[in-house]
């Protein structure tokens, strides 16, 4: 099981705990994640400036993986959505030729459309499969309860993601977490967007969006919010204080990556899961499994 590991921009700088936990989790699951230094930005930020440039950037990354003969596994839902979307657009041959000609011009490989793109969570759910994860559980996380935040781009746009999961009622990450024995709650604004993408252009809306979910989950008293995307994590964890201030509340809701939770159940150490980087300490949780 060898895959091109697509880190993206945020993870390797702003979500070290995500990267660390992912790498270690992959290790014990026997999944080889190969680092590809040639990878560049997926194109998401550029999409608002020049859609074709964005497409080129995505295509380039796809081409690189294809040339290395590996499918892509990523951890950032945004990157995965953009790459998948690009894949879909590039099924149009006319467009693909146009793109390849440009790729040639910048000395990149041509993309023929063979490479697959999957978010790590999706990969675990679809390809690695739950039962095999279950086998590796050593410390069931019964007694824990989480609220999952999927992140819009995890399964949307559905056509780009091959209609994986159900946008109005997502369940796959719940599945992954439940495997560990932990409970997950189904809550009204489960599908609410974290709002990070507009933090720079419409900060107020962005914060209010974040606040809504934080408020609700706090009120439900879950042990933590579980996320699958560095951006969402930034919105809910890094910004938690700011958001609180904006709506005049004090939040103290730990935000964990699904990889950390699963890792925990598989007996990985806090260090291996980068708990040290949790800005809102999840000690309550870790205590239980000391």
């Amino acid at each position, binding site marked *: 099981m060898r895959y091109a590991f697509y880190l993206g921009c945020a993870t390797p*700088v702003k979500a070290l705990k995500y*990267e660390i936990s992912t790498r270690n989790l992959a290790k014990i699951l026997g999944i080889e994640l190969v680092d590809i230094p040639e990878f560049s930005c997926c194109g998401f930020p550029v999409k*608002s400036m020049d859609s074709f440039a964005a497409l080129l950037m995505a295509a380039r990354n796809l081409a690189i993986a294809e040339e290395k003969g590996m499918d892509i596994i990523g951890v950032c839902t945004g990157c995965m959505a953009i790459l998948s979307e690009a894949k879909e*657009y590039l099924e149009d041959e006319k467009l693909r030729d146009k793109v390849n000609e440009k790729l040639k011009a910048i000395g990149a490989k041509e993309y023929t459309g063979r490479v697959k793109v999957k978010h790590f969570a999706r990969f675990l759910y679809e390809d690695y499969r739950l039962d095999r994860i279950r086998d590796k559980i050593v410390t069931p996380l019964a007694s824990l309860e989480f609220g999952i935040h999927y992140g819009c781009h995890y399964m949307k746009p559905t056509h780009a993601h091959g209609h994986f999961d159900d946008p109005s009622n997502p369940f796959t990450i719940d599945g992954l977490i439940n495997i560990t024995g932990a409970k997950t709650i189904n809550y009204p604004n489960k599908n609410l967007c974290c709002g990070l993408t507009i933090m720079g252009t419409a900060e107020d809306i962005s914060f209010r969006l974040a606040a809504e979910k934080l408020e609700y989950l706090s009120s439900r008293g879950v042990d933590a919010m579980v996320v699958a995307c560095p951006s969402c994590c930034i919105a809910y964890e890094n910004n938690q204080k700011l958001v609180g201030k904006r709506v005049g509340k004090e939040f103290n809701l730990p935000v964990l990556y699904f990889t950390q939770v699963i890792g925990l159940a598989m007996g990985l150490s806090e260090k291996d899961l980068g708990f040290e980087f949790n800005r809102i300490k999840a000690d309550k949780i870790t205590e239980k499994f000391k």
Partner: protein
Amino acid sequence: MYNEFFDREKLKYCYQCGKCSSGCDINRIDVSFQPHRLLHLISIGAADNLMEDAGLWKCTTCFTCSERCPQGIKVTEILWIARTIAVKAGHIPELLITQKDILLRTGRLIPMDNKKRGKAGLTAIQEESSVVARIFEIVEKEK
């Protein structure tokens, strides 16, 4: 531009049921943001008035509207394209300018910090800094 490959035809089919706005969380918080109105304005060719419209930059691209549009209009995509048009018309939010600048310099949105990674025991990553710049060069040449 690949919106030439994007099915604009669909846009004409919008019959203003408003489902996009109904389901939009931004609209819930800031009622001035109304996807169905954006679509309408674009489809009647009154897009220019949109350019200054801050609404363009309020969408989080959560795709809820696209998913639920009965006419299968890729609302989010259209909004994205509207943005690029605005940008070309020179209505660029501060943030974008800085972002573009960083991208051109480093090839990534958030510059690499290998020192930090080192501390965390993660291997350093050599960044492909020039890619984005090269791509933009090409695309600019296009026009």
